[in-house]
C-alpha cells in the first residue's frame, strides 16, 4: 500500500513541487504544496487518482511563524488511502482559494474557517454570514492569540467557591510527597 502511495507521490512531485513529505501511517500521507498549484492538484487527485472524498478541510495556527496552515484531507476509498495536502497562508492577510465548486461540502468548512480563524475565501457562498457564533465582536476564537480564559473571565461572572485541582500539583502532593517542589522533572 505504501509503495502505491510512494509511486503516486513520485508521479506528482515534480509537477506540483510537493515538499515536507510525511508517510505518517500506511494509509495516511502528508505533503505541502504552494497555494497557486493547489487547485490543479486537487482536481487531478479527484478526477484521475480517485481521491474523490474530501474528508476534512481545517486550519492550524502557526502563530510564531506568522502562518496559517490549511489542510485538505482527501480519501481514495477503494485503495483506503488518505492524502493530506497542506497549504501555508500569510497570517496577516489570510486568503485561501475556494474549492466549493469541486466539493460542495467545502462551503461549510470555509464558513467555519472564516468565523473561527478569520481566513477568507472570496466568492465562496455565504462565507461572510455568521456560522455558529452570533454577534461575535472579538478576535476569531480559534486563533492562538485569542485567550479564551481571559475572555470568559471578562464576560461571564464566576460563582465563588469553585475549587480546582491542577493535576500536576495534585500528583506532586499526593503521589510523590518526597519530591522537593521546583525540582527537575
Amino acid at each position: 500500500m505504501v509503495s502505491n502511495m510512494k509511486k503516486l507521490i513520485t508521479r506528482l512531485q515534480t509537477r506540483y513541487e510537493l515538499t515536507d513529505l510525511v508517510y505518517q501511517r500506511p494509509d495516511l500521507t502528508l505533503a505541502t504544496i504552494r497555494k497557486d498549484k493547489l487547485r490543479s492538484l486537487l482536481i487531478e487527485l479527484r478526477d484521475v487518482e480517485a481521491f474523490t472524498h474530501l474528508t476534512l478541510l481545517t486550519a492550524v495556527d502557526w502563530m510564531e511563524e506568522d502562518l496559517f496552515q490549511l489542510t485538505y484531507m482527501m480519501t481514495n476509498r477503494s485503495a483506503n488511502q488518505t492524502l493530506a495536502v497542506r497549504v501555508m497562508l500569510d497570517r496577516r492577510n489570510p486568503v485561501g482559494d475556494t474549492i466549493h465548486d469541486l466539493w460542495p461540502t467545502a462551503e461549510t468548512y470555509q464558513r467555519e474557517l472564516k468565523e473561527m480563524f478569520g481566513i477568507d475565501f472570496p466568492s465562496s457562498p455565504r462565507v461572510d454570514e455568521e456560522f455558529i457564533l452570533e454577534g461575535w465582536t472579538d478576535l476569531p476564537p480559534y486563533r492562538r492569540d485569542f485567550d479564551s480564559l481571559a475572555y470568559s473571565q471578562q464576560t461571564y461572572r464566576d460563582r465563588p467557591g469553585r475549587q480546582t485541582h491542577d493535576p500536576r500539583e495534585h500528583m506532586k502532593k499526593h503521589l510523590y510527597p518526597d519530591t522537593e517542589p521546583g525540582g527537575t522533572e
Partner: protein
Amino acid sequence: MMKHVDPNFVKNADKEFPLREEMRPRTVETPDGQTIEIDPLNDYFCDAAPKVHRKSYSKIVEAFYNWARAESLWVLGFGTGCGAIEMRPLMTPRFDAYRYGIQWRPTPRQANLLIVSGYLSVKTLKRVIRSYEQMQSPKYVMGLGSCTINGGMYWDSYNTIKRLDDYLPVDVYITGCMPRPEALLSGFDTLKQIIKAGKGEGANIYAENFAQYKANQKAVIKDWDMPDYSW
C-alpha cells in the same frame, strides 16, 4: 471578578454589533402599492415589561393556590446540553415522572417549569430567554448540573455562560455532571416544597428586577434583535 488577565487580552467591550438588516425600521412598498413604515421589533410584539403578580387576599387561599401549583408542574421540553439525555428515561417507564404529576409539553405557552438541562452558549441563552418569557406565570426554572451553576467544564469557554441565575431567576439547582434521573426526581420534590412554602416567586423576582436581568442578558447577547420582553 477579573484575575490574571494579560493586558494584551483585555476585551474590547465598547464594540457594538449592528442590528440585522431585516430588523431595522424602514420604508417598504406593499404588494398593493402602498408605501408604509415598518419597525419589525415593535410592530409584531408587545414589549410591555412584566408585572408583579400580587398574592391572594387571604393566606389560606394562597396556600391552596400554591398546593395546586406545586401539583401541576408542566415541563417545557427544551433540551440543551447533555441533560436532555437524562430527561428521556425520566419521561418513559423506567423512572416515570408522570406518577408525580409532572409532564412534558412541547411549547412554552403550555408549560410552567423550564428545565435548563446543561451548558448554555450565548446563542442558546437567547432562545432560552425568549422561551422563558413566553411561559405563563407563575413559572419556575430549574438548573441542571454544574454547567448552569458555575460553568462546570466550560469554565474557560469563550461562548458559554457560567451562572444561570445572572440571566433568569432560578428556583432549584440540581448538582451533578450530569445529575441522574433520581436526582431530578428529588429536585422536583424540592421544587414542590418550595412552591408549597410560597417561595416559588421566580416570575415576580424577574418582574421586580427586570432592568437588572435585561442588563445582564444584553451584556452577553450582542445581537439583541428581539423585543425586551417577548410575550
